[in-house]
């Protein structure tokens, strides 16, 4: 076995297979477990997926939403056991890999089109 295969075989047990296929521009809700004192509860963070970085166990996704007209971004490690599940609320259409331009947008121009292209492919996956 090569070096990379050995490391990936270690990672294999941590990889998530229960998550839907996510693409940039999608509106998603991340169910995140948080610990408050000795209690644990699930917090749902819903927003636009604006960036994803890394692959395998190091994959991170950034989700942006608006709270009282103030932008809030959170970055989640996809493979963390704290991320309970991820749901796709809406498929968005994006031509870019990173939607950082949304930070400067306001009002109507902040919207993202519904995805029409390539939906067949997503349904299959």
């Amino acid at each position, binding site marked *: 076995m090569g*070096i*990379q295969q*050995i*490391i990936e*075989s*270690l*990672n294999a047990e*941590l990889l998530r297979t229960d998550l839907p296929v996510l693409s940039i521009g999608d509106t998603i809700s991340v169910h995140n*477990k948080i*610990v408050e004192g000795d209690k644990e509860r699930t917090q749902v963070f819903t927003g636009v997926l604006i960036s994803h970085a890394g692959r395998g*166990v*190091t994959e991170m996704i950034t989700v942006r939403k608006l709270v009282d007209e103030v932008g809030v971004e959170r970055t989640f*490690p996809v*493979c*963390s*056991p*704290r991320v309970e599940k991820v749901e796709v609320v809406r498929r968005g259409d994006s031509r870019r890999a990173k939607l950082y331009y949304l930070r400067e947008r306001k009002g109507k121009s902040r919207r993202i089109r519904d995805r029409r292209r390539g939906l067949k492919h997503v349904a299959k996956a």
Partner: protein
Amino acid sequence: MPFTLLGTKLGMTRVYTPKGVSVPVTVIQLGPCVVTQLRTMEKDGYTAVQLGFGEAKPSRSTIPVMVHDSKAGTTPKRYHREFRCTAEELAKFTLGQTLTVKDFEGTMFVDVTGTSKGKGFQGVMKRHNFKGVCASHGTERKHRSPGSIGGLCSNRGFGGGLKKGKRMAGHMGDERVTIRSLDIVRIDEGKGLLLVKGPVPGGARQMVMVRTSTRLYKSKAKRLAGGKK
């Protein structure tokens, strides 16, 4: 004395604890090592265990090495290293014995020794963490320079010349480095892997030496005493 094994650094990845904390780990392929010689007080004047690690092609090896290793009943090894031990500890080892990562079971902390990555000729800011010279206030073309390297009388004694050991620019890296008190995150006996928390010196595929910790940092010694993992 600390128990030592030789291994190969494979690279880094991360693991998650059940609570969801991400732990950066270095994967080390540790062993199997063969005891190729036992140094005794009568014969050598000191007591130590010599280990052989890594296969070497017979065509790439030399006849003295092949004969030396065949005395332990094994094929020629690429690396040979010794670790000191007392005469009582030496009695536990036998010539030709195979040591694996399993022997590290029950250990919480290890020291890892390796050869750091070579950085080439580097300036004082990168090599010795100097602060450099002011960005403004009239500074021109010497923002990363060491500044003054000696005064008229300071550090000098009699006669000109710099104090020995003055830190200057020069070759950095590619030297023996030991990282102490690393946490063992996991031991994978089947694959012969050791996962330690944090980085270790050198690049992937490089030989590293792993030993049980000799001097623990205070906080880690406390954890060991408390028996918490």
